[in-house]
């Protein structure tokens, strides 16, 4: 009798071993070339900075300290690191605004696609997917062509006589916002569409039958039903916005930095690796917080409906 059990158990063990073997190449590559170095960076954030970049192997909290504070060179007084705080704030503010605006534009768009006849729906979706898969740098560059002083918008406005001087958009926060709005819009539309596509329009019919107006149907029936898509889309836009590097670098010029550029700066001209590492960790922590909120939401939802 015991032999049958032994046999089943050994087959099970063998299966699990085989599956770990199948997983190992992916896990090893990702560990060495993506996840593992994050731990090294955590260590680096607690070291002293080297004179020409790099680190000196001695424990120090200077890196973390200077994320938020700065010490006056002359009288040694402490004050908040205004430059860092303002960059941090700009990153969060612009990311939230990007999320909000992509939603305001993306929701009607996703709804529009989801309510097309089934055959043409795929074509519309394809039109959203194309920009999504084209190079982010090229899209940012294309945006620059549109908003710069000699760009399409200003040329058109001048030609129409609406303005007599080009509007300065490039190298401002507005430019970064436009750029991020442009490059991350598909990331909002796709999950919203996935939710809206599954929407049972008989529920909408039921709401109309019970005297709801169009807006009430939207607010009270459609939006609550596609909330998972709204949250997923917001997360998908917010997280890359927060870590944006290319868009602010190209459209914001040298002045309007975001967190991503500040981090890169520490590994380049700044030559302050521990600070850069600490800033990277701060960004990662912010992302984790956003994800945690998302997971909480998703979990409470599944608890309610599961």
């Amino acid at each position: 009798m015991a032999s049958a059990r032994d046999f089943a158990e050994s087959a099970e063990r063998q299966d699990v071993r085989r599956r770990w073997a199948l997983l190992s190449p992916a896990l090893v590559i990702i560990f060495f070339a993506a996840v593992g170095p994050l731990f090294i960076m955590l260590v680096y954030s607690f070291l002293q900075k080297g004179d020409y970049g790099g680190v000196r192997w001695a424990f120090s909290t200077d890196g973390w300290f200077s994320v938020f504070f700065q010490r006056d060179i002359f009288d040694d007084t402490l004050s908040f690191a205004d430059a860092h705080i303002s960059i941090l704030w700009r990153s969060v503010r612009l990311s939230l605004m990007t999320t909000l605006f992509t939603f305001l534009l993306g929701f009607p768009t996703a709804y529009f696609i989801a309510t097309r006849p089934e055959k043409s729906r795929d074509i519309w979706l394809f039109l959203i997917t194309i920009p999504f898969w084209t190079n982010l740098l090229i899209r940012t560059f294309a945006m620059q062509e549109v908003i710069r002083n000699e760009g399409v918008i200003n040329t058109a406005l001048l030609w129409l006589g609406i303005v007599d001087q080009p509007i300065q958009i490039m190298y401002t926060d507005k430019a970064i916002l436009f750029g991020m709005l442009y490059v991350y819009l598909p990331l909002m539309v796709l999950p919203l569409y996935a939710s809206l596509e599954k929407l049972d329009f008989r529920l909408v019919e039921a709401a109309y039958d019970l005297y709801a107006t169009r807006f009430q149907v939207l607010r009270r029936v459609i939006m609550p039903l596609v909330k998972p898509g709204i949250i997923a889309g917001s997360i998908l836009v917010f997280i890359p916005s927060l870590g944006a590097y290319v868009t602010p670098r190209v459209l914001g010029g040298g002045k309007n930095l975001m967190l991503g550029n500040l981090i890169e700066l520490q590994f380049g001209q700044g030559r302050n690796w521990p600070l850069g590492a600490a800033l990277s960790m701060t960004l990662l922590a912010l992302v984790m917080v956003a994800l945690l909120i998302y997971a909480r939401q998703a979990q409470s939802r599944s608890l309610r409906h599961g």
Partner: protein
Amino acid sequence: MTGDIVPEKPVRDAIEVRGVSKIFGAGEGRVAALDDVSVSIRENEFFTLLGPSGCGKTTLLRLIAGFDFPTSGQIMLHGEDIAPLPPFKRPVNTVFQNYALFPHMTVAQNIGFGLEMLGRPKAEIEARVAAMLKLVQMEKLAGRRTSQISGGQQQRVALARALAPAPKVLLLDEPLSALDFKLRKEMQIELKRLQHETGITFIFVTHDQEEALTMSDRIAVMSSGRILQVGGPRDIYDHPAERFVANFIGDTNFLPATVLSSAGGKARVKLASGIEIDAPLPAGFTPGSEVTVVVRPEHARLMREASTLNGTVENVVYFGTDTHFHVALDQGRGFVVRQQNARSGEAGVSAGDRVGIFVGDGAAQVLKD
């Protein structure tokens, strides 16, 4: 005893299941899908595992096929323990519930797949595939993709594919459940024919009692991971051993009774109404035991005058071929009588009428519990 034929040659067991248990999960979520099951399936037999969903019938089939391992116990094929054999080394083939036809292959490629895997020569495979196509009358569709044929045709291909390697035992996992009523009736006859022509042992899993009764040589009724009763269709229907079997197969009336005396497998029992009747009695009962007596609706007769049982008609339900009379017995229970609608215009009984119900000798059966 009723329909059993005496075999000319000694029958061998095709499959013997010895004390098999299958436990899924552990700790709190531990579920025994099979609980110490033992059964012998004879050679050339059409054997059916019958039970509601979740009773363990499919699990038992999967253990025989080798898709799962028993937690304990042995499974013998022609007297040989097949537990260590993976499915691809067992001379057993399966017809799956959803057919599991390979979508990227033609009908002929599907049928030939097993022989190809066994490394048979090409000529042999071709001949065998042709023979199988003929057997299930699908010669014309040999080159079709399996997605391009109807459900009934897919069913035939699945059968042909499983029969092609000439397995010792064919396992059928609710193969007819996806078909509509008319096609199902046709395939029932078809399956019987195939079993007869090929002489292969069929183990058939179903939850449909009618299917089981019409097709099987023997039936094992299962519930909650146990086999409750094994026997021929008549046996199972007329002499259910347990309440579950009686309830699951056909409609049944249950009546409480007391054993008065017993002799030679027959007993005199007293019903709650005070009437005494004769009924076959399983072993292990002594006079005075409280038992349950079952009566099939069609084995009782409705009378205008007082009879074995008495009550008031509550409902008359017309079914076309027959009519069900729901009677409220004077002792407070319900009782259903089924009568065939012989001719039209028969003066019927209607709701509210006082009636008697006659239960003849042999119509009642005492349950084991």
